[in-house]
């Protein structure tokens, strides 16, 4: 029976399973290596030792305590206020990036195609320009306007990076949506705006929420712009982590990483679930 299994045809071109073992082996190894490193951090964060053993010889919550009780208000090693800044900025980024990105997506989908062809590359340029350049450019720019180390500066910088993702998500949703419904609504007596609000918006709302979550995650995880634009009282958690990693390996970072993994995975799962809901509605 095993030979029957290995002699099975597994593709349209009649390749047998046994000839493909190497492919399956590589694939599994790569998949394993992709996901394991992130996950390994989780048990390590419960290790009592300074060197983060795996598997942990002694279990402890000391690094979590270090994280949650770090509120000292002095910036470095003050993980909690850095976390709070990151959350604040990420939430504000949602309210900047999502409306602007959504409006732009709607304008691109319904406007003249000539305009779209010119604007689309401009709109995704934040994703194309090397992020280090964007970061130092913003830093220099913000110095002139005293926006360095400010929440506003961070929100602007993060929105800049999040907007292209919002644009792509909403643009894609609108492309898959039957615009004729707005036309019908207008023929029945609705103004353009009312038709959008009552007919289109309810049908793309899941995509918009997904886009908001992506905007949140993008802002929350953003490192390089935060490195240059944030500082002192308004450091973000990513900036603090990076500086700590560069200078010393603080095991508290393992605890923070675990929390970040859980938050990211949670958001990702929500986005996937919402994405499927939009299709069935």
């Amino acid at each position: 029976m095993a030979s029957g299994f290995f002699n099975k045809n597994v593709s349209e071109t009649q390749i047998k399973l046994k000839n493909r073992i190497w492919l399956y082996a590589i694939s599994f190894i790569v998949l394993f290596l992709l996901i394991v490193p992130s996950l390994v951090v989780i048990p390590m964060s419960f290790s009592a030792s300074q060197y983060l053993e795996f598997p942990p010889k002694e279990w402890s919550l000391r690094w979590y305590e270090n994280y949650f009780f770090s509120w000292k208000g002095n910036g470095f090693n003050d993980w909690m206020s850095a976390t709070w800044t990151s959350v604040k900025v990420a939430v504000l980024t949602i309210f900047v990036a999502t409306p602007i990105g959504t409006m732009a997506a709607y304008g691109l989908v319904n406007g003249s195609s000539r305009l779209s062809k010119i604007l689309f590359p401009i709109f995704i340029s934040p994703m194309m320009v090397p992020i280090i350049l964007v970061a130092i450019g913003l830093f220099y720019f913000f110095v002139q306007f005293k926006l360095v180390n400010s929440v506003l500066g961070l929100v602007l910088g993060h929105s800049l990076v999040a907007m292209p993702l919002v644009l792509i998500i909403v643009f894609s949703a609108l492309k898959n949506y039957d615009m004729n419904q707005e036309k019908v609504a207008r023929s029945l007596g609705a103004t353009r705006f009312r038709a959008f609000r009552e007919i289109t918006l309810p049908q793309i709302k899941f995509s918009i929420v997904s886009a908001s979550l992506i905007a949140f995650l993008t802002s929350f995880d953003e490192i390089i712009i935060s490195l240059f634009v944030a500082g002192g009282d308004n450091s973000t958690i990513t900036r603090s982590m990076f500086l700590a990693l560069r200078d010393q390996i603080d095991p508290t970072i393992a605890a923070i990483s675990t929390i970040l993994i859980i938050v990211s995975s949670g958001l990702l799962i929500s986005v996937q679930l919402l994405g499927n809901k939009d299709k069935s509605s």
Partner: protein
Amino acid sequence: MKNTSLNISIENVTKKYDEFYALKDISLNITSGEFMTLLGPSGSGKTTLLMVLAGFTNPDHGSVKFGDEEVILKPPHLRGIGMVFQNYALFPHMTVEQNVGYPQKLRGVSKSETAKTVDEALSTVKLEGLGHRRVDELSGGQRQRVALARAIVFKPKILLMDEPLSALDKKLREEMQIELRQLHDTLNMTTVYVTHDQKEALTMSDRIAVINGGELMQLGSPSEIYDHPQNGFIADFIGESSLLPAKVINSNISIGSSKIKVAKPPEKNGDYLLVVRPEKVFLPSTKKKNDENYFQGKLLDSIFQGESQLLVIKLANTENDEQTLRIRIPNQSVTDKALPAIGETVTLALKVADSYLVS
């Protein structure tokens, strides 16, 4: 459910996209309460014209009046029209009732009045009792009716329809054609109907406007258009026909080397096409008559098509060796006389009164 309808006057409407004329100086008058079909192949401009009437496409210049009122500059939501789209465009996040009631909600009609008119509309389209259903629970035919109900619930004076039946299967489509026409007669709205299906147009319309290349080719009743197409394109597009090249020299009309007579001989000399409808050609009796034209040829094919038999004959004595004539003979009775066999030489007849030349 009678209501007053409006006439539509379209004047000098042109719409250009770069170098391409979607509509070229079209002028057309649609009488109040009429069922007018805009008929043409894909890309002919018929849908563009409908969109101009609805207000979704703004022409480069032109005038559109509903009754006495110029509406060309009015946005779609102020034109007071009802519209049915090809794919129905029902709102999936609303129930049937909510869909049909939407125009009333937009007009601020009270809830009770809305419910009343929604029920009326649904029963007019024979969907009573389905109000609470969601859109994805309905069949194609039912969705079509909901789209219709939504378009008429507020009793518009003008109804526009863009190929509403093209998504339905043949049998349902033919039933709906008759139903739509009956609905039109009951509601007394001016209806503008777009289709590429000439049979549909012939079935449903008071008048047909044949549109091609952005231009109005011919305007007339179904029988006018069918029996007297004004050019080769229309003759070919409407109904089946064979088009035989004919030469006119000083009132002598000849196809190949045979002479024929036509009902209305053209005044100018030149090249024309003889329009031959397959159902008008027949196998003649042996006696030759004065009011008949005759064609001779070899039977290439005899195809059984259910209610009729289609014979394909290759004509002799024509310039073009490939010239074929098609004749359609109804299969009336089992006891009908035998049809000619393939390969046989046959003679076909066409009454002079049915012989018609186009340029």
